[in-house]
């Protein structure tokens, strides 16, 4: 079989061998329920608390500000619906942006159906939220600003510190979905002025099905999943000890060499972007040219459609994405690309590649080599390209 070139690390990452090894004992040997009082369960309890420490340290938080969840999506839902419920008496207004992940957008839409008012901030052509609009949107009833750290589709990194400052000045809580940022850019909740933050294990070589909600100790956080007394009574359910241990190990490893690895990926990113834009006409980079994740390239190719492009790349053994994986079943063009002002049919023809630790310069060359004839072939099939050539030829 031909080799697979995996360029979809924003969708998910493999679990690292070291991470898996850290997890293994907790499946079959030290499998005790951390809530049990006998000494056999001490191993799992201790592993759980060490994982909490590791993660707290990784984002500059206190141990008791870390709550384990079953996914990044759950963390987003909890942060938003939890704050909405706890601060309802203070106000019913929430501010977010048009380029959030569906976990945030759909949680906000749910709240809109339940008596909340949500402002969806515009972004500029690079995908950055409008800070002036943010400031002028805040009112007496505003209880939460939720703006993602880095965009999963176009990689744009938001001015989190500035947003944190504005939120603080105006006495509004600030949540950020940092699912795509962890392991790629430094994240320190105090430095950034973030009150709540979401993490997902499988985006940085940890396991799927486990996440974190950070909530500053001053935040009144109501339970979202009610049950036993786990997570200081705020999130019921027997803790996923192996998953949590794996996520903590993965974060530790990711942070240990983040600086070099990010620099390496950034170079590859810029290299492949340049090569593509050079070789393929009518292509444009989406997202901010510098303020972007070190591993994200998102390019629109006019006149062609994303799925066809992905299938053809797949036949060459290249895994890439067009929009986010979790909506690849969807037919709508990406809400992110529409928000940065791309017309419908151009938004349709976008390619996201997201690099990882295994990515090499060779992979980049292979991608470009494969891409050029594929785009040509698809354009030759395209009625839009035909019209364009006729009208401009």
């Amino acid at each position: 079989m031909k080799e697979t070139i995996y360029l979809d690390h924003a969708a998910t990452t493999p679990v690292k061998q070291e991470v898996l090894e850290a997890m293994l004992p907790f499946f079959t040997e030290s499998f005790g329920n951390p809530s049990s009082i006998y000494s056999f369960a001490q191993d799992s309890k201790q592993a759980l608390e060490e994982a909490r420490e590791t993660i707290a340290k990784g984002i500059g938080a206190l141990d008791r500000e870390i709550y384990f969840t079953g996914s990044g999506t759950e963390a987003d839902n909890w942060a938003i619906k939890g704050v909405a419920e706890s601060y309802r008496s203070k106000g019913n207004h929430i501010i977010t942006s048009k380029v959030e992940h569906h976990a945030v957008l759909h949680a906000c839409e749910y709240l809109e159906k339940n008596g909340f008012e949500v402002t969806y901030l515009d972004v500029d052509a690079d995908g950055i939220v409008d800070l002036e609009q943010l400031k002028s949107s805040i009112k007496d009833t505003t209880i939460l600003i939720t703006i993602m750290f880095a965009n999963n589709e176009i990689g744009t990194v938001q001015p989190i510190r500035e947003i944190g400052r504005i939120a603080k000045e105006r006495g509004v809580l600030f949540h950020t979905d940092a699912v795509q940022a962890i392991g790629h850019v430094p994240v320190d909740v105090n430095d950034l002025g973030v009150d709540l933050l979401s993490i997902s294990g499988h985006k940085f070589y940890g396991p799927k099905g486990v996440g974190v909600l950070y909530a500053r100790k001053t935040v009144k956080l109501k339970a979202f999943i009610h049950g036993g007394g786990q997570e200081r009574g705020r999130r019921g359910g027997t803790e996923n000890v192996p998953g949590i241990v794996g996520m903590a190990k993965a974060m530790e490893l990711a942070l240990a060499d983040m600086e070099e690895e990010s620099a390496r990926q950034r170079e590859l990113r810029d290299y492949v972007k340049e090569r593509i834009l050079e070789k393929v006409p009518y292509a444009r980079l989406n997202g901010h040219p510098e303020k972007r994740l070190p591993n994200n390239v998102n390019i629109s190719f006019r006149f062609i459609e994303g799925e066809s492009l992905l299938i053809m790349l797949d036949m060459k053994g290249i895994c890439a994405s067009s929009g986010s994986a979790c909506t690849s079943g969807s037919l709508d063009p990406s809400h992110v690309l529409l928000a940065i002002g791309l017309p419908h049919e151009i938004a349709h023809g976008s390619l996201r590649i997201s690099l990882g630790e295994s990515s090499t310069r060779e992979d980049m060359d292979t991608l470009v080599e494969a891409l050029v004839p594929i785009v040509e072939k698809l354009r030759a099939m395209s009625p839009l390209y035909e019209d364009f050539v006729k009208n401009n030829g």
Partner: protein
Amino acid sequence: MYSEKVMDHFTNPRNMGEIENADGVGTVGNAKCGDIMRIYLKVENNVIQDVRFKTFGCGAAVATSSMATELVKGKTIQQALEITNAAVAEALDGLPKAKVHCSLLAEEALHAAIWDYAQKNGIVIEGLEPPKEDIHEEEEDEDED
């Protein structure tokens, strides 16, 4: 997710291209996904002598375009009109549920091309409706959310 036949027609589309001075040309857009398809016809004595397509769309859209053109080539206009999107999908060994709407694009583009042919030649074809702006399909039976 696609059948082997779909993949075959996607990677080696039959009858892809244009026809100079075509007797009928139809272009339709899919309201559900924004994709676009165009079909060219060469008609002699009421028989489709040649047919070509161009498609801006997903794998299923390309494959159904290809299969639809295969199915109508050499057929009379009336026979061609009887070919439904379901028949095209079936000839491709089926489509994923979320991709059924893509096959409508082929059916509608073909009808639009035949309509154009009829208009140009002053022919009235029983039961043939003018092309719609947008294609809608029946909503899937998925219960609402």
